[in-house]
């Protein structure tokens, strides 16, 4: 298929339809509303598919829960304050092992915050977000093409591991336009996951629950989730390395911050500085081995995020003390420029004596 020019929000919606998303439930919130609008215009007209503008983010995610119970591919999207409202049901879905794709085009917080792009939901996304011991897979694309590709991956991973998957973008990725190519055609009939509840036809009745009054039983549920999380950590990490082979200073960044850092690194290289970038695509599971590996050749790391420093915890945990980590960030929806990041890189490079 030829490339088309699209906003990130629309690209996710189109990719979801092509991945066989049968049900979308949403609620307007800037800066992701175009996704909801795209689904209203396009998904609702597809045979067998459903679009509902729910009365709240809480209702939307619970509709996703219900649709997922039947084996349908279901999705919702929101932005930071709306994501907070969804956490209860995400915890239930994690406990009940129900797949779903949940998009967060995040914005500045805390509170109502701002509608500008920010990355301050890293902790919420990668630490479960709601109550209880659980994780969700978190994918962090950094271009419109990747938003489309990772949307497809998100549905596949959700089904493969029966787990909610968060696609974490931000207001900038959602609203910017880039050429995108869709690699899949939408299925004529939306797929149905085997094992969903649609009535006990030809089999005994089944129930899905998370509650038990027996702590030992709940402990076993927790350990079984844990084993699955271990499998995911083993098999599903994904990252991008950019000019890291000879790099003495490695910038760690995800999502849109990595786009900004890439420009800064290219310019730093032009100035003769040996700088590279490590970009996790999966924020959970965090590609910690791949990052640790880099500390064999590079000693200095600059963690750059559009928040007060959240992923830096995972960077440090991954390096296990084997790297010198500095942080630079801008919270609140301020979007740093490449030249600003270049200044930080240059200063650090000279401070650490890397200019030889």
């Amino acid at each position, binding site marked *: 298929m030829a490339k088309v020019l699209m906003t990130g929000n629309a690209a996710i919606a189109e990719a979801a339809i092509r991945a066989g998303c049968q049900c979308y439930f949403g609620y307007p919130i800037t800066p992701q509303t175009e996704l909801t609008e795209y689904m209203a215009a396009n998904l609702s007209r597809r045979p067998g598919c459903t679009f509902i503008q729910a009365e709240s983010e809480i209702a939307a995610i619970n509709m996703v829960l219900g649709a997922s119970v039947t084996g349908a591919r279901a999705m919702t999207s929101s932005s930071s304050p709306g994501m907070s409202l969804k956490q209860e049901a995400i915890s239930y879905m994690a406990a009940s092992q129900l797949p779903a794709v949940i998009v967060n085009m995040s914005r500045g917080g805390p509170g109502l915050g701002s509608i500008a792009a920010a990355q301050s939901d890293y902790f919420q996304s990668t630490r479960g977000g709601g109550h209880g011991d659980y994780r969700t897979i978190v994918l962090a694309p950094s271009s419109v093409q990747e938003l489309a590709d990772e949307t497809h991956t998100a549905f596949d991973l959700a089904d493969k591991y029966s787990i909610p998957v968060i696609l974490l973008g931000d207001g900038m990725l959602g609203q910017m336009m880039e050429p995108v190519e869709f690699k899949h055609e939408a299925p004529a009939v939306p797929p149905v996951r085997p094992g969903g*509840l649609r*009535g006990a036809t030809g089999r005994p009745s089944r129930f899905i629950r998370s509650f038990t009054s027996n702590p030992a039983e709940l402990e076993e549920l927790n350990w079984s989730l844990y084993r699955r999380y271990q499998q995911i950590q083993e098999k599903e990490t994904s990252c991008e390395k950019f000019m890291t082979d000879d790099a003495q200073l490695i910038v760690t960044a995800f999502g849109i911050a990595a786009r900004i850092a890439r420009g800064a690194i290219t310019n730093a290289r032009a100035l003769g500085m040996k700088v590279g970038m490590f970009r996790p695509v999966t924020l959970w599971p965090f590609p910690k081995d791949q990052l640790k590996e880099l500390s064999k050749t590079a000693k200095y790391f600059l963690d750059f995020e559009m928040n007060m420093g959240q992923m830096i915890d995972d960077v440090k945990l991954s390096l296990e003390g084997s790297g010198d980590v500095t942080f630079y960030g801008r919270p609140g929806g301020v979007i740093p420029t490449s030249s600003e990041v270049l200044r930080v890189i240059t200063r650090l490079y000279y401070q650490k004596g890397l200019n030889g």
Partner: protein
Amino acid sequence: MEKIFTRPKSLKNAVFHYCPGCGHSIVHRLICEIIDELNIQDKTIGVPPPGCSVFAYYYFDVDMIECPHGRGGAVATGIKRAAPDSVVFTYQGDGDLAAIGTAETLHAANRGENITAVFINNAVYGMTGGQMAPTTMLGMKTTTSPYGRDPEFDGHPIKMSEIIGQVEGACYVERVAVNTPANIRRAKRALKKAFQNQLDGKGYSLVEILSPCPTNWKMSPVDSWKWVDDVMSKKFPLGTIKDTTGKTHAD
């Protein structure tokens, strides 16, 4: 000898954990009888709530999904939209339907979701030990209204069925009780109609059931059944609140 009374096929052979005199077990049985009579056991999906009836899936022999407190209307919406051939019912208490899940309930009704809502009103939070519910009677003592429910501070008992009766998408709303044999028969008629409406594609049906909770009312079962007549149904009058189906009761 002819067998004239037996356990419904869709009611599992299990001992109810409900307290003696509790309305839940009666309502469970009624729903199961209806599922059998309508021959829908293999396409029914139940949505029970947290609370005393959280273990409903140990009793109903149909597919069930335990859902977050109050979100039954939304979860049932997702199920029914994704699998329109299924028969979906929510089972919700007063804290669930009339407090934490007010929005989900009202909007499921307003969209005219083709589902059946069973609303157990026993005027208290049962499982947590008898706290004040939105439906607690004025002056009634609970653990969180120890001096009696005072309208000045706690508001009045909320009449959710009347509120939902105002909503276009709701096709049938009726309030019944399960405190006497005659009322139990009426309750079954109402519930059966609420399921039939779904099979006929008519939209959202709600049956509110005044249901004794002798444990938290601190009464004997017999006194609690009387209290439903003497006190509760004065505030929550029994009868049809809305019916646009153009159909009389199923039998």
